[in-house]
C-alpha cells in the first residue's frame, strides 16, 4: 500500500515546488499592493543567504529543535505522499510543530516565548478540523490510507463541502496567512516581533523556511485528496484555493488569538461536524 518512491519524490521535489509557490505568492501579494515585488526565485535566494550567514544562538539546543522540525515535517509529508495512514501523518505533523514550539521555548526569550504560546493555541485551533477532515475522508472512502483515498473515484468534495470549507480556514492558519498569522508572520510587522522564529538565525531559520515549503506542498496534497477523482480538477482546485488564500491574506487584518481559537473551533464544530453528521445519516449510520 505504501510506496516509498512517491515519498522520495516528495522529499526531493517539494522544496523546489514549495519555494516556487512561495515566490509566486510574494509576487502576487506585491502586485496586490501595487508593487513590482521580488523576483520569482527570491525565496531560494533568501534561504541560500540564510545558509551563508553565521549561526547565532541563544542556547545550543535550538539547533536540535530546528533540525527536528524539518526532519519530522519531512517525515510526515513523505509519509503522506507515500500513501500512509492519514492519522499517523497528522500526528507526525503535530510532532514536528511541537519541535518548533520547543525550539521557541528553549531560548526563553520574551517574544519567542509568546510566539510559542500562540503557536500552541494555533495548533489546538486547527488540529480538530484536520482530524475531522481525515475522518470525513474515511467515512467516504472507508480507508485512512492516503493511497486508497487518492485512488478513489468518488468525488469526495461533494460529500464533504463543509469539511472542505473548514479545511480552507485551517489552511489559512497553517500557511501563516493573515488573519491568522499570530505566532510568526512573513508579512506585516507584529507585536511579538517574529514570534516563534525570533531567536532562530541563519541556517536554523533556513531550515524552518524549508520546512515551511514542505508543509505547503503537504497541505496541497491534502487539498488534492478532496478532488482526487480527477487530477485536472484537483490541480485547478489547489491553484484556486491558494489564490483565495493570497486574497484573504491581503484583505484581512491580523486577528487576536481568542478569535482564532473560537472561530476555528466553531467552524470545525459547525461545518465539520454537521457535514459528518449528515454523511453519517445518509449512509444510514455506519454499523460496526
Amino acid at each position, binding site marked *: 500500500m505504501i510506496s516509498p518512491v512517491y515519498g522520495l519524490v516528495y522529499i526531493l521535489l517539494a522544496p523546489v515546488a514549495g519555494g516556487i509557490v512561495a515566490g509566486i505568492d510574494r509576487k*502576487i501579494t*506585491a*502586485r496586490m499592493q*501595487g*508593487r*513590482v515585488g521580488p523576483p520569482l526565485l527570491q525565496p531560494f535566494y533568501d534561504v541560500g543567504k540564510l545558509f551563508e550567514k553565521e549561526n547565532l544562538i541563544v542556547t545550543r539546543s535550538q539547533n536540535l529543535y530546528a533540525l527536528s522540525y524539518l526532519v519530522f515535517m519531512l517525515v510526515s509529508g513523505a509519509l503522506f505522499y507515500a500513501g500512509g495512514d492519514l492519522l499517523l501523518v497528522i500526528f507526525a505533523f503535530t510532532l514536528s510543530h511541537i519541535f518548533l514550539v520547543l525550539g521557541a521555548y528553549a531560548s526563553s526569550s520574551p517574544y519567542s516565548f509568546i510566539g510559542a504560546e500562540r503557536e500552541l493555541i494555533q495548533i489546538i485551533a486547527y488540529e480538530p478540523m484536520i482530524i475531522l477532515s481525515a475522518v470525513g475522508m474515511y467515512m467516504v472512502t472507508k480507508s485512512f490510507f492516503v493511497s486508497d483515498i487518492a485512488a478513489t473515484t468518488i468525488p469526495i468534495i461533494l460529500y464533504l463541502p463543509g469539511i472542505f470549507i473548514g479545511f480552507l480556514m485551517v489552511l489559512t492558519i497553517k500557511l501563516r496567512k493573515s488573519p491568522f498569522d499570530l505566532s510568526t508572520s512573513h508579512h506585516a510587522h507584529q507585536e511579538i516581533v517574529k514570534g516563534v522564529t525570533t531567536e532562530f538565525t541563519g541556517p536554523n531559520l533556513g531550515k524552518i523556511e524549508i520546512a515551511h515549503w514542505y508543509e505547503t506542498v503537504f497541505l496541497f496534497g491534502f487539498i488534492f485528496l478532496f478532488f482526487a477523482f480527477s487530477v485536472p480538477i484537483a490541480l485547478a482546485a489547489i491553484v484556486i484555493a491558494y489564490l483565495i488564500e493570497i*486574497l484573504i491574506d*491581503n*484583505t484581512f487584518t491580523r486577528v487576536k488569538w481568542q478569535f482564532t481559537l473560537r472561530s476555528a473551533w466553531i467552524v470545525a464544530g459547525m461545518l465539520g461536524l454537521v457535514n459528518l453528521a449528515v454523511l453519517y445519516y445518509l449512509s444510514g449510520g455506519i454499523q460496526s
Partner: protein
Amino acid sequence: MAFFEMAKTAIRTVVSRPATLMYPARPGKKTGLSRGHVVIDPSRCISCGMCMKKCPSEAICVEKDERIWRIDRLRCVVCNSCIEVCPVKCLRMDLQYSPALLSHSGLETFLITYVKPERPKKSETGENADA
C-alpha cells in the same frame, strides 16, 4: 458582514500597472525645486562668509585668507539658507542629491578663484561638486 472591503483595491492593483518607479533602472523623481546639494561657482565667490554665518548646521567653512570654501556633505542639511543669503548668488542648489559615501569623508574643498576687480576665467582647482 463587510469583509473583503480591500479586495476591490487589491484586485484592481493586480491587473493595473504597479506604482513602482523602478528607481535605479530609471532616474529618480526630481522637481524643479528639489533640494539636492549645494554647488558653488568659486569664480564668483567673494568670501564674504555669509553662507557660513547663516548655516544652521555649520557645514560651510569659508577661509578668507586661504581662499577656501569648504562644505561637509555629511553635515549639510540642504536647507537652502546659504543660497538665499549669498549676496553674489554664486551658490546654487543642484537637483542631484549627494551620493552615499563609504567612509566618513564628506568634506569637499573649493579654492576660491574670484579676483576682485575683474573676473578672469580660471579653471577650478577643487574637485567638481558633482561626484
